[in-house]
């Protein structure tokens, strides 16, 4: 190996093609993302996802001279998003439709795969477990990740899962499970949200 400290080859797509969700055009996809983020142009999450979609869309331009300015624009926008809001979402991470980023700051989504209707919060890490490892997490549809969650290594999160705040996910989650804690444990969400304190006390 020429560069012994080079980044390991990970199990994500190498980014040589347009990996945006199929069956929807670029503009309508961005419009849908804007709607997902409450229709607010001031939402950092919307701009991050829009830059990500743009980075993928430019890979559908086959002519290299036409693509070069788009690539330059994408890189500037990507670095801008990382510097401004601390959201690191490279274009070669596969992201499904209606991907919602609540708030911003310290979000490292460097590797992995996201399904449709995924909602995530700030301070989240989704990526590699340790150096020289190549397995990345795979996240299903309708998943919600709370703030501070770490999902590292080759774990699979099933559809409809809820991962509570500050949880470190260390093994695969079956569909529709809810977990919280370090080490993570199952949690009863309905029980928590029903619990109310007597206002008289």
């Amino acid at each position: 190996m020429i560069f012994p400290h080079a980044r390991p080859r990970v199990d994500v797509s190498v980014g040589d093609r347009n990996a945006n969700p199929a069956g929807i055009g670029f503009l309508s996809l961005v419009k849908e993302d804007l709607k997902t983020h409450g229709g607010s142009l001031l939402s950092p999450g919307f701009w991050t996802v829009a830059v990500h979609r743009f980075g993928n869309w430019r890979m559908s331009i086959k002519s290299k001279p036409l693509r070069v300015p788009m690539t330059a624009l994408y890189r500037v926008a990507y670095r801008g998003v990382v510097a401004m809001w601390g959201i690191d979402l490279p274009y070669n991470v596969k992201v499904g439709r209606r991907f919602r980023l609540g708030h911003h700051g310290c979000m490292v989504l460097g590797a992995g795969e996201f399904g449709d209707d995924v909602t995530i919060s700030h301070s989240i890490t989704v990526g590699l477990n340790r150096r020289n490892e190549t397995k990345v997490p795979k996240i299903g549809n309708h998943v919600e990740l709370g703030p501070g969650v770490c999902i590292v290594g080759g774990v699979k999160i099933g559809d409809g899962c809820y991962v509570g705040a500050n949880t470190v996910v260390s093994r695969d989650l079956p569909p529709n499970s809810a977990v919280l804690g370090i080490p993570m444990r199952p949690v009863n969400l309905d029980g928590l949200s029903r619990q109310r304190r007597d206002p008289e006390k």
Partner: protein
Amino acid sequence: MVSELSPRAAPLLSQQDGNSPEPEAKDARTAEALPLHELLAEDFRTHDGLWLEPGFWAVAVHRLGARSQRLKSPVLRRPLALAHQVLSTGIDWLWGINLPASTEIGRRLRIWHHGSILLNARAIGNDVHIRQDTTLGPLRDRDASRPECLPVLEDNVDIGSGACVLGGVHVGKGSFVGANSVVVQEVPAGATVFGVPARIIPR
């Protein structure tokens, strides 16, 4: 130890170390009842008189927004609401402190440091201290605009860095939430809670 600090910090410290309550503590007026300039001066003192403290600006802009909502005349209210929107977005983008106008805050709220602070609560009491990476919000993202699904922090609550208080829970008076804890259940007054999910630590 006091001699190592700046002369401006020394009277603040001696005031807090003594058993006598602070002069403001006798003042039982709510944040709404106080004139805006007194409120801002108090917030400035709470943030140790530091002009460049991000927490001070976040609280000050929130006060501006809360006051502008009360104005009857749209001639003044609309430009102030616009100014609040611009400034709060700037603070959110620059420092990552998101203190929505819907959160009702008490007096002398101290926000330490900045970054990933999201304070979508129903109400925050007086003399509350909040640190970086704190999240107050609903358990599920879809409940973000339902007040009964948002937490309430009572007076003198101290929140450690990285802590989350999620769902419609009350954090009782004078309680302490340890760093990186996740509170999803009621916290009684004066308790110390720690862990994910947070449990009461006996003293």
